[in-house]
Every structure is written in C-alpha cells, then in structure tokens.
C-alpha cells in the first residue's frame, strides 16, 4: 500500500508551470448526504447530494502566491491566466514499498476560484500564507481529477520571509511580536449545478482585510502614540515589511527588490490593551480594518527593496 507526504502545488499558465513548495494541504470534500428522515430510529436511505472539494494550502512562498492570487481572488479556467492547478502529494519510499519516478498522487483542478486566507508573520518564525482553491465542475467532469502515477514537477520554487521593520500611522514598531493579515474574502453560495452534485461556480462578494499587530511595547498604546480610540492610517504612513531570507546566507541585501512590502489604509483601533500572564512577556494588540481609499485597494502588496527606516 503506497504512502504519501506533502508535495507541491502548481499554478499552470497554458504549458508553463510554477510549482511551489508547500507546508500543508487539506482537501475536504464538503460532501452532503441527504437521509430519508422517516421518523424511524435508524435512517433507511441515504443519497449524496453535494460534493464540492476545496483545497486549503499553506506555504512560505509568500511572493509566489501573491504573484498569482489577487485580493479579489483569481479564477482558474481555460479562459483565465491560470488554466489549471495541481496538488501533488509525494509518494514515500518505505521498507515494504518501492516506487518509480512516477508514483506520486496528483489532484488536478481545471476550473476553480483561488482566494487568499491569511498571512502570518511571527517574529522568530518564517512567514506563511494560506489560500484556498474552490473546485468546480466544467459542466461535464468532476471538480477534481486524480491520478496516482505522475512524476514530480521538474522545477519546484520556494522562498522564505521574516518579519521586518514596520510602521503604522507613521510610527515605527520595533517591538512587534507578530503581524497577521486576515484577508476575509466572502463568496457567494457554491450550490451544486442543477441536476448535479458538483458546484459549478462562485463569485467574490466582499473583501474586508484586517491586520492585527501584536506588540511587546504596551506604552505605545496611549494618547500620544496610538490613542485609546480610533486613528486613521494611510498607504503613505503604514508599511509592513517581510525580509526575504537568502539561501546559504541570512537575508537578501536590503537594496535588492525581492522583499515583500505591504501598505494599507484604514481605521486603527486597539484590540487588546494588555495580555499578560506569569512567566511570559506581556503583549498588546492593535487591529487595522482596511479600506479602499478611492485609488488604492485596502492592502497593496509589492516586491520591493527593504526600507530600514519605514516611518521616515
């Protein structure tokens, strides 16, 4: 019996494949089964009425994901930029099973909707981003096609980032513990196609990103800095930076335009004034609810040089 472990996720543009390293994958089917509800003690009939798999993926390759998926989601189909996606689960060689070069498991989606879930950057950990692929039927075929005899992608790319200096409303935050972006993308219902168990489409209803800054410096949450109320931030004075890690080195040079920079506008409100317990450092949390300022999206992400003085 073959066994598998985490593999890769590929974005295809026609015949061009971008395969990224991933940290986790979870593919629930969101199946619904109808029963007869006869009033008997036990059900006597069941029918499958819905089967709509979704792929939830997390990865450290923040830049690659944000190059493929926009804030408002990205469709996957033959008429879109991304024509299909593959989740490949790598076959394990075990003491009782050997495998060839094409023993790996592939789940392929040719119609779907990619949306961002969240980005988490902890102070002493690599940043991770998570996204979901909602899988749809093309009208004929199942939302996901499986194949248990494929080769791994020839080239697999990856990248890693660490939390860098950030500024919020023009104030630098040198004592951050973490920054979390929840993209908060809501979708229309994914009802099955009439006469089918497979969902055929969905659309993005709203995108309401929120950014949570968890910091060590409780003294910043006071009237002179971040007041106990609301304050406004703009793209010009709010910057979150993720430093790219260099292979066989530490960080990629600051001046090299390979780091991730996010700017955001919105309303900043303290979310937790004090979170303290014995034996650990106290923290405070600020939450930025972002808005469209009329020109820029609520959060703008770019690949750029690292700014060592983001508040100036």
């Amino acid at each position: 019996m073959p066994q598998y472990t985490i593999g890769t996720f590929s974005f295809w543009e026609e015949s061009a494949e971008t395969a990224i390293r991933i940290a986790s994958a979870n593919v629930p089917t969101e199946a619904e089964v109808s029963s007869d509800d006869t009033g008997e003690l036990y059900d006597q009939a069941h029918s499958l009425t819905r089967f709509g798999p979704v792929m939830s993926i997390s990865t450290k390759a923040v830049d690659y994901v944000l190059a493929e998926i926009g804030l408002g989601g990205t469709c996957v189909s033959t008429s879109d930029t991304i024509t299909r996606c593959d989740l490949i689960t790598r076959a394990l060689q075990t003491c009782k099973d050997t495998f060839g070069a094409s023993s790996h498991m592939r789940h392929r989606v040719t119609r779907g909707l990619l949306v961002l879930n969240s980005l988490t950057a902890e102070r002493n950990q690599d940043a991770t981003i998570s996204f979901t692929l909602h899988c749809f039927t093309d009208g004929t075929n199942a939302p996901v096609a499986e194949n248990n005899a494929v080769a791994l992608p020839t080239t697999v790319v990856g990248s890693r980032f660490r939390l860098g200096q950030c500024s919020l409303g023009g104030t630098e935050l040198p004592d951050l513990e973490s920054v979390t972006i929840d993209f908060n993308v809501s979708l229309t219902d994914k009802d099955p196609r009439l006469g089918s168990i497979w969902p055929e489409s969905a659309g993005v209803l709203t995108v309401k990103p929120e950014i949570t800054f968890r910091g060590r410096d409780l003294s910043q949450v006071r009237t002179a800095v971040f007041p106990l109320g609301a304050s406004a931030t703009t793209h010009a004075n709010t910057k979150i930076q993720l430093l790219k890690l260099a292979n066989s080195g530490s960080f990629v040079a600051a001046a090299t335009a390979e780091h991730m920079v996010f700017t955001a506008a919105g309303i900043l409100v303290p979310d937790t004034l004090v979170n303290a317990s014995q034996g650990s450092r106290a923290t405070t949390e600020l939450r930025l609810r972002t808005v469209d300022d009329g020109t820029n999206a609520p959060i703008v992400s770019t690949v750029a040089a690292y700014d060592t003085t983001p508040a100036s």
Partner: protein
Amino acid sequence: MALSTHERAAKVLAARGYAPNLLRSCDAAELSSLAALCGEDGTLVDDLPAKLLAWLEAYYAARKAVVED
C-alpha cells in the same frame, strides 16, 4: 528615475489588488494601455478604479474571444 512600461503596469495592478500574473499574458498594446494609467514618476491617474475596470473588461473580452475561436 523614470519607471519602465512594465513597472508602471505592475504598479497599476498592485494598487487595485490584482495579481501581477496578468502581465504575463498581456500583448504589447495591452501592456502599454495599462501602463498609461500610471505616470513615469509613479503617480496613478485620477479615477483609477473605473479606468482599470474598463481595461480589465477589454482584457477579458479579448481572452474570451480567443478561447471561443
């Protein structure tokens, strides 16, 4: 330093939250018309959301026409 056509087009997409992979399937005319929404100094045009939406409608209409052919 003046931004290149590609840099200006990327800046326009990023400003409205669109992924830059769109640029890979743009032809020269599409790239140029997208870049026109951003000045060489990086200043975005007024009414960017509506203008970018109009560009996207044309972009997707062109893709759909190719697929249907």
